[in-house]
């Protein structure tokens, strides 16, 4: 069967969706994201990181494992110590006509413009086939199927550093005949809402958003100079809007998930929740823009950072209410 290339908002959810669609399961990217409990928040300060950072989705790999667990898909997964074995395994699968997802270093995706390519070891692509020495690649961020030379793909699959891919590949080997979407959707919802409001970890979920609000005011103490501070403040916009989040730190994609779930399960409560998180997403987008503006203008005095902190704290209030209600709803639908 010919592989249908589609753009997607995010590389991991897009790649998992594309492989499931190719295997005959009709499912959308937002449903994959929501069922896997992809929505998240974490604020991290560690000696391992040069500067505090935050994430707005679950850990790389959990979209695949979460959706597999909840809908009963079985993915074959492999990592390799040897480059040769990793390359051989991929080529054999492609020769047998199986598209394969590969974890890569984004920097080597040389069919994308230079200015967007940075070293990030958790970029997922689907390799569709090998023609001569060139791989045909379906990348969610490329409008069409792309070609990638063999050397670049080997470098991308075996790049070093944190989250190093070690040649990781996966592909579905079995899809269940029937899927209990009601169970899968509510299980994903309960898991996401639990992570956001119940996990007793001070830097995760709503607690993490509050910590972010409190700490961002002190970022000037951690920055080398105003240029560095400006760069870090502008990264708030990049993390929320630019890195394949579907907009507003995945909140828009989660809203689409809840709307599609509402249609699938004929449940108007989910549509109401979809509207609420969409509005919260709009408010996150205001933070993106505010951070980008003050960073660009170097307008980074304590009053401005205080304003930014207050905006972030208001999102914590919104999300606390939202995810508590969602969890309550999830428990009532068991």
């Amino acid at each position, binding site marked *: 069967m010919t592989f249908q290339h589609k*753009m*997607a*908002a995010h590389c991991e959810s897009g790649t998992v969706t594309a492989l499931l669609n190719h295997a005959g399961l009709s499912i959308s990217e937002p449903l994959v994201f929501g069922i896997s409990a992809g929505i998240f928040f974490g604020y991290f300060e560690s000696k391992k990181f040069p500067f505090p950072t935050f994430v707005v989705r679950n850990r790389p790999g959990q979209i695949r494992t979460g959706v597999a667990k909840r809908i009963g898909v079985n993915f074959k997964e492999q990592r390799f110590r040897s480059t040769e074995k990793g390359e051989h395994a991929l080529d054999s699968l492609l020769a047998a006509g199986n598209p394969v997802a590969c974890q890569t270093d984004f920097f080597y995706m040389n069919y994308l413009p230079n200015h967007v390519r940075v070293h990030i070891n958790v970029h997922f692509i689907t390799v569709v086939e090998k023609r001569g020495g060139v791989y045909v690649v379906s990348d969610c*961020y490329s409008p069409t199927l792309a070609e990638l030379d063999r050397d670049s793909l080997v470098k991308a699959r075996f790049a070093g550093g944190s989250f190093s891919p070690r040649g990781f590949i996966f592909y579905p080997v079995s899809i269940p005949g029937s899927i209990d979407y009601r169970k899968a959707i509510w299980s994903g919802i309960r898991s996401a809402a639990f992570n956001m409001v119940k996990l007793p970890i001070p830097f995760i979920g709503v607690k993490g958003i509050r910590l972010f609000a409190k700490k961002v005011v002190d970022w000037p103490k951690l920055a080398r100079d105003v240029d560095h501070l400006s760069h870090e403040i502008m990264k708030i*916009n990049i993390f929320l*809007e*630019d890195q*394949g*989040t*579907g*907009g*507003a730190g995945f909140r*828009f*994609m989660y809203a689409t998930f809840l709307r599609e779930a509402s249609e699938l399960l004929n449940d108007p409560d989910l549509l109401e929740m979809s509207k609420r998180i*969409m509005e919260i997403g*709009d408010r996150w*987008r*205001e933070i*993106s*823009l505010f951070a*980008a*503006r003050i960073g*660009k203008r170097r307008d980074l005095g304590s009053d401005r950072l205080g304003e930014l902190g207050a905006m972030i704290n208001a999102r914590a209030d919104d999300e606390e209410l939202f995810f508590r209600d969602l969890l309550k709803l999830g428990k009532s639908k068991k």
Partner: protein
Amino acid sequence: MTNNGLKDEIKNLIMEALNIDDVNPEDVGDDDSLFGEGNVLGLDSIDALEIVMALQEKYGVRIDDKNQSRFILKSISTIAEFIEKNRTK
């Protein structure tokens, strides 16, 4: 509103949202590229987000992410086409 009227309105909205006062809206061609090298307005990705939010406020259209916005915000014509199809205000 005619398509040309809408295009003029979008040009004025962009000028206003971005506080651009050194370019006349008439100098922006309907099919001129708004981003990238050689564009008359010299816009960047932060400007794109400003435009996205201004369009949402005025026309009630939501542009979720960059994958969408890079096609929609190509030119005044592509924005007008998107607004005509999706406006709720």
